């Protein structure tokens, strides 16, 4: 029982981190309908800056710098690639981001080398004991941050001009421009935000219980794909729910893999995708996604 509670709690808290990453996907998707494969390297970039700087300038400034840095990288990607693209449709642009990811990831990996970079975070390896179960402070922090950020963006998309402009631009750039929307700025801001989020996510990916970040850290971004999808690619709430769902599934499946051996060991890592498929069978646009209602 305690194991279950512990796994559940751990799943939820890990899910929060997935949610943060998923939110990054969602924002880019809302702003430009592009599935951003370069998100992994945004993560790396952000984490790298934090890890490198916290020594000199202390953790919080380093975090700020990391966020800024990742945001900057996001802007650069937007400015140098997305904006320049003559691509006829969005899936093509998605491919471009694959190329971007290869370039960035290789470059950053080269700088990281063998190192396992610690983040110098204030939480260290302290854990909070709730009765028999214990959970890392870092994870509680992650959960809170995720909740706050996601609510913030939920509101922003609904109620701010920025949100409206972003969705308008995504749907029909020309008309949005006719409304006076500066497409360039909007899409750049989206990429900046996504970058910032990536940095935050990177932080929580690299702190305890993981020893730090290395060049493989970015790969976790892949796990956030099912999260983003089963929540609904264009839904902020979806990102949260999807993230938590994935986190919990994964934790339970791997925790109980002994009893699930018939599924093949290591099922924990594929379980998220199974869940995603099930959800999509029932709701093709994810749990909270707006389904394409077309009319003729």
């Amino acid at each position: 029982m305690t194991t279950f509670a512990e796994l559940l709690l751990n799943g939820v808290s890990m899910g929060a981190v997935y949610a943060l990453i998923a939110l990054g996907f969602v924002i880019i998707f809302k702003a430009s309908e592009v599935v951003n494969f370069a998100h992994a390297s945004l993560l790396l970039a952000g984490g790298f800056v934090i890890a490198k700087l916290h020594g000199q300038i202390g953790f919080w400034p380093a975090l700020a710098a990391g966020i800024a840095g990742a945001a900057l990288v996001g802007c650069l990607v937007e400015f140098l690639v997305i904006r320049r693209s003559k691509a006829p449709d969005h899936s093509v642009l998605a491919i471009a981001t694959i190329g971007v990811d290869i370039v960035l990831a290789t470059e950053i990996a080269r700088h990281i080398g063998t190192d396992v970079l610690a983040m110098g975070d204030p939480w260290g390896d302290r854990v909070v004991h709730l009765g028999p179960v214990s959970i890392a402070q870092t994870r509680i922090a992650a959960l809170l941050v995720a909740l706050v950020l996601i609510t913030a963006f939920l509101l922003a998309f609904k109620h701010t001009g920025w949100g409206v402009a972003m969705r308008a631009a995504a749907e029909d750039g020309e008309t949005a421009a006719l409304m006076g929307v500066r497409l360039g700025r909007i899409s750049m801001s989206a990429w900046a935000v996504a970058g910032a989020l990536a940095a935050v996510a990177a932080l929580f990916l690299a702190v305890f219980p993981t020893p730090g970040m290395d060049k493989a850290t970015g790969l976790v971004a892949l796990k956030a794909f099912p999260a983003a999808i089963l929540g609904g690619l264009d839904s902020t709430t979806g990102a949260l729910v999807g993230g938590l769902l994935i986190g919990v599934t994964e934790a339970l499946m791997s925790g109980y893999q002994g009893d699930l051996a018939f599924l093949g060991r290591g099922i924990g890592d594929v379980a998220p995708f199974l869940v995603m498929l099930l959800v999509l069978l029932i709701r093709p646009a994810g749990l909270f996604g707006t389904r394409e209602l077309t009319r003729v």
Partner: protein
Amino acid sequence: GSDKSADNGDKTGADGVKLGPGVTDKTIGVGMITDLTGPYAPLGKSISQGAQLYFEQVNQAGGICGRTVEPQVRDMGYDVQKSVASYTELEPKVAAFAHFIGSATVGAVQDRIAKNGPLTLVLAWSPQMLGAKQIQMTGTTYAVDVINGVDYAVKTHGLKSGDKIGHIYVEGDYGVDSLAGSTFAAQQHGMTVVEQKVKATDADMTSQVAAMKSEGVKAIVLSVSPKQTASAVGVAAAQGLNVPFLGSNSSYAPQLLDTPVGPALVKNFVVMQAASPLSADLDAMKKLATDYKAKYPDATLDNGVMAGFTTAAITGDALKLACEKKDLTRDGIISAHRSQNAWDGGFGSKMDFTDVSQPPSRDTNILQPDKDSLGGLKTIQEASASDNAKKYEIKVG
């Protein structure tokens, strides 16, 4: 294009030495297929540096058989297709492969090597790598390392029959073979194994450790990546699961000592590895350290360098031996190599290359993380093979 109709059959050189592919009167081609861009890039880099260092020294000393050795390195980024391509490209041009990294990547061309390939030193320790005369692993298999480790734990931490030991292992033959080892050892001691399999990409071992904790294991074997080791040990410490951890040889990296879990590692984690640690008190080792520092001033000396240097040395010695027998054909080189039964090259652990179906050794060093010693590891039990390790029967292929 290349002149195809020229057959690569064996000829005889001016000095009466039979020449095989990759060998001319002036040069001997030696191939290295390594990973400079993939997951093992850092390791691969040190390994090739180690090898290059060796061949440079050899060439400065007048080469082998009066021929200069021409190392040819190819990066396959741990990608199977690239590894096949690199092998296909180098195979006709080289007398031997001084190293070839990775199981899957070697696996992809294994059958071709076994058919008519050159002597190939592989850096992968699964039993699949045994059985072909061309293919040579160093040290011993993952399983044997783990068996030695478990026996050590039983001896020192008084595990007894009926206890449970945990094993967190990564997908792939590294994990699988290690698991075979722990299972065997556990049986021998009347203990049971609690398995937890993880993917290479998993970074957070909380769930796994939680599972172990609830099973009440007395020790945990780790056949995972260094990062995963750190996570597992760290989480255990934080959750007050205070048991010894036994790490397979690729589960540790000195860099971990700088991370928050450093202390925990030093406290209750040991590494099982066939090769002697860099900190071992051996002249050869010291020389390597100084030479390496001289050539690559600001690179850190790690096991990779050592492994690369050793495999290169094995290759070099095989070539020298073959030269004495005036036969630098593939078969010549291979049989020369296979004739050695106590190769050590000054690096402590003795290796017996005569039995193609056995790893060259069954000894394992038990090492402990230590900031001050070179390579971040110090010896706490000299290379030796426990009885179980000796009687463990290795299934080839």
